[in-house]
């Protein structure tokens, strides 16, 4: 049950994030959408590792099956990468805002060099 709720949540985060990426004109909104979508992908991977009645995969956490630890280990790496991506792209957005005085994507695409 919890597994399916998590899967549903992950898919809705993905749709929400990618929808924001497509529909907003402001580049910061687009990056936010991207970040929500990558959160959705991360949650999706964790949900894949779910097992019924499982406990967290930590030594000494009692009897019963543990959740699959591998996706959780993977997702740590993916979260770090997505964090780096977001941070670097925000630096570039700051640069563009200072030089072209806009965050509107159609205007940025037409943007001339200063």
């Amino acid at each position, binding site marked *: 049950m919890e597994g399916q709720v998590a899967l549903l949540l992950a898919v809705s985060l993905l749709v929400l994030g990618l929808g924001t990426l497509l529909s907003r004109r402001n580049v910061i909104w687009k990056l936010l959408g991207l970040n929500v979508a990558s959160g959705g992908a991360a949650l999706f991977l964790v949900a894949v590792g779910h097992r019924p009645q499982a406990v967290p995969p930590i030594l000494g956490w009692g009897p019963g099956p543990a959740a699959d630890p591998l996706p959780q280990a993977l997702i740590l790496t993916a979260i770090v990468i997505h964090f780096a991506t977001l941070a670097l792209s925000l630096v570039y957005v700051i640069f563009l805002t200072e*030089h072209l005085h806009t965050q509107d994507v159609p205007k940025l695409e037409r943007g001339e060099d200063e």
Partner: protein
Amino acid sequence: MTAALAGVLGYFLAGTLELLRTKTGPCWGLVAWAGGLISLALWAPGFPESKLGGPLWGISLVGDPIALAFWCFIPLVHAAVGWHERRRPATFHGLVTLLVGTCLATVLSRDLFNLFVCLELNSLLSFLLIGFDARSRAVWASLQYLILTTVGMILYLVGLGLVYGELGTLSLAQISTLAVDFSTPSLAVGAGLLVAGAAVKAGVFLLGLWLPLAYREAPTGVSTLLAGLVGKMGIVTLARLAQALPVGPLVVSLGVVTGFGGLIYALWERDLKVFLAYQVMSQVGYMLIGFGLGGPAFFGALLYTVACCLYKGLLFQAAGQAVEAVGKRDIPSLAGRLPGPAAIGLAVGTAAIVGLPPLAGFVGKELLGVMVPPAFSWTLTILTLGTAASFSKLLPLFRMGPAAGERGAVTLLTAGVLGFSSWGLLSLPSLWAPSLWLRALAAVAVGFGLHLVIHRLDIRLPKIGLDRAALVSLVGSVGLALATVLWL
């Protein structure tokens, strides 16, 4: 495996040390470069699939022909870029060294998640390098590149989750022994999304439309590196996926679409670097057709990829130098004003890419043409005619202008193209058949004839901005996933 791993780690360490220096020019990059060559000499001609970090959960690495082929020419591209950009600050060379290191790692990897990490590192480092000059257009180009490739990588991650959920392993080596079929829909969707994510990174037409702008705005050395090496990492991933999962037909159809799509955009493009970028997309078509068909065509596609990296690197290097020297980008206004080395580089690269015997493109195209079934061999012939037609418009550029230009990088890459050509001709005597030479020459001649007709037509193709590119990548990816469920 230890030697190969040491080479990669050497690259990462040297790149990091280089970032800490404050002077100009490469220093640790040279050390890494030499280390890479030593490491290659130690592990060539290959090592079997082995698990880094223990037998059960370790990361699969393999020194197979793909890895060997890439390791053999990567030092050449790295040297050309390092030489051309030697006056830049050490930060630049640190980033280049790290980027080359991630490419060395990508080609060794046979693990789905490890490939994801390598591709993401690749994107982040290319992102920094494309915008390195801090011109606002270049910064925008690299931001667009990062947004689109991240969309691709998110899809890849979801696909990875689905495949792992069904098969319980991430090692492509292990998956290829499982004889997977696509009877379970979630596995099929997962495989489709993996292919879509890698295709976005590879710059396949309609999925990876970040490519023309990024290649246009990148500094000369960086666009050489992108065209000659980094851009091929997505293709290596697709080749690895086609080896392990039964997604061959999907990869072949992507190849046909990108071959013709890139070509159509290239035919009417006037900006030199954008034209070459669309040609990169079109050449990807040949490789994907070969990799998707598998068997002997797989080997042909691998050799084609190496040849293509060499002459595409050369073309972008020469084009970049030409644009730097003249200060203009559109082909007609560059005519007759190119510095000597740039004109020669463009001429050699063009002769190679249209398949004039005995150069590298001829070797690659004939090899691939022999190894694919007849239906595809016709597709490849039409693509070759189109390539010749679109490159005919570069003819006025081969006349040199008065300006002197830099020779080093162009010479290195030309030597690479000629070296590959002579290796191909010496090791494959069947390429000496006069009928093959006549056919290749005839194809170029017909292509030139086509050019005379086509350049009179004035066709405006729709422009592609970020929103459209993101929309078509997403729609295309969902389409690929559906196609895997319904068709395979």
